[in-house]
């Protein structure tokens, strides 16, 4: 088991390097003025200053030299210095890590704690009114633009009813977290409900469930002893994949609710053309996704004995 975890963690390294390279190459394609981020928008710097800044930032070196330097910096967790705030990017990001993490966790927690039971209920009564209405809700949830849902929630629960604050981080407590987390969690919740339903239906028709019934088990025991874990194996993949879209949509939700996370830093940095900060945010979000996927794989291994160590 330890070997499996170690290998799975080590597998992240080449992927991380590939991602760093991709992001690096992508942002090296940017026209020169954009790369320094200072020249346009009427800031009125003269060419001599720009040239000096480019030299200072090492932007005139060949691409591979710059990439080598970039990887070297990454290895020491140095994401560079922000063009705008002149702060180390890693410090800017770490200040915003916790709000992003809590929002993502709360949204996924909401999605799992609502979506899984709903999918289960639907699967145990296929074709029933509850099942059909749940499927209608699920496909609707998948089609909702997350920011529109956020605006609707904001309007209803904050501006009209006054139950929650309309935006902002406050003390980071549940009261401020509730609306953004719900807005972000509805779409993965819908997908999880659908996947769970399909997985449970699939497993309820499996031969080993018939065996369980032939043993004289009641349906409750059949579900608890034989269906739950098998369904979870199928649902786990979806949970892992959903984190990807959750992190993407999280950027939008953070911006909408003025949530001080990595996502809103990313968007602000794009507007300020602060390349090191943009690169750093993307790298951090992707790293987080990678860690999630690795954890999902390890969780798989814990649940399913058929997955081999090698």
């Amino acid at each position, binding site marked *: 088991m330890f070997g499996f975890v170690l290998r799975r963690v080590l597998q992240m390294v080449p*992927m991380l390097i*590939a991602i760093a390279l991709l992001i690096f190459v992508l942002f090296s394609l940017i026209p020169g003025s954009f790369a320094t981020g200072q020249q346009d928008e009427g800031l009125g710097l003269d060419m001599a200053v720009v040239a000096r800044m480019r030299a200072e930032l090492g932007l005139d070196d060949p691409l591979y030299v710059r990439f080598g330097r970039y990887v070297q910096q990454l290895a020491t967790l140095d994401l560079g210095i922000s063009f705008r705030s002149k702060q180390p990017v890693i410090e800017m990001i770490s200040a915003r890590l916790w709000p992003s993490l809590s929002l993502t966790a709360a949204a996924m927690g909401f999605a799992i704690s609502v979506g899984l039971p709903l999918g289960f209920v639907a699967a145990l009564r296929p074709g029933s009114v509850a099942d059909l209405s749940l499927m209608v809700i699920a496909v609707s949830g998948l089609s909702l633009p997350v*920011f529109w849902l956020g605006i609707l929630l904001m309007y209803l629960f904050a*501006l009209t009813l006054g139950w929650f604050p309309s935006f902002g981080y406050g003390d980071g407590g549940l009261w401020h977290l509730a609306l953004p987390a719900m807005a972000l969690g509805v779409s993965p919740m819908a997908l999880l409900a659908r996947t769970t339903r399909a997985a449970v239906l699939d497993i309820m028709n499996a031969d080993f469930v018939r065996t369980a019934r032939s043993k004289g088990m009641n349906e409750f025991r059949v579900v608890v002893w034989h269906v739950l874990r098998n369904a979870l194996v199928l649902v786990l993949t979806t949970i892992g994949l959903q984190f990807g879209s959750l992190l993407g949509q999280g950027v939008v939700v953070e911006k909408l609710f003025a949530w001080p996370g990595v996502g809103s830093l990313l968007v602000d940095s794009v507007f300020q053309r602060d390349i090191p900060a943009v690169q750093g945010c993307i790298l951090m979000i992707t790293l987080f996704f990678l860690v999630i996927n690795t954890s999902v794989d390890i969780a798989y291994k814990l649940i399913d004995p058929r997955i081999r160590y090698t």
Partner: protein
Amino acid sequence: MKIQANLAIGGGLTALALFVGVFGPWLAHTDPIMDANLMNAELSPSAEFWFGTDQQGRDIWSRVMYGAQISLTVGIGSQLINTAIGTTLGVTAGYWGGWWDDFVNGLTNLMLAIPSLIFALAIMAILGPGLTSLMIALGLTNWSYTCRISRAQALAVRTQGYVQAARVLGYGDVRIMFTQILPNTLGPIIVIATLGMGGTILAEAALSFLGLGVRPPAPSWGSMLSDARETITTAPWLSLFPGLAIFITVLGLNLLGDGLRDVLDPQSRSRR
């Protein structure tokens, strides 16, 4: 029965969206950008302004009608790019195998490792806002599933008798791929493209909402919502209609995709 309901409702909503996309300029009452009139600012829905007017007095109905063009252009355009990239890479990788297959596999895994909206956002940051940028950004970032499916299909079909027969007959690789392998992957690919179009329309709206997609004053549903957010206390209807338009379009595509999957790719339900 449920299958037909999916197809019928999804097809109907999609047809409605396409109709508005094509005939939007005729359905609109006024020009969506130029007809600003501050005398009419923030009017609620009425007989004259069906969906009300925005801060600058522009008719929301007209802007929503025009907005369909942007959403559908980006949705269709980016899905064409995605499908072209995905099938080309997938079919060639599955058919040729070897180092090319390894490379495509690695590339697909890399694409799957980066949240696609984040990736698209990065490309938008580089290319700058605009319709073409959006199509490219969303077209380059959502092809991994198409690639996987067509690779698997090509791999499965490659060893089958009729493909080997075609090879014996002296058919070239490209001809075999087009005539023997692609038709077999068509069903799943249409399903993925339909469902994916819903996703790219949502992504376009999200990027425009952030101000990175289509820039105002162009009437993108996403940027209309971005504007509307500022007046949510005084004119909440501004937030209602563009969102509803996105929702209906995407819902139609999702239902249509589900319905098509049941018809074109029946195994996928159990295969998942």
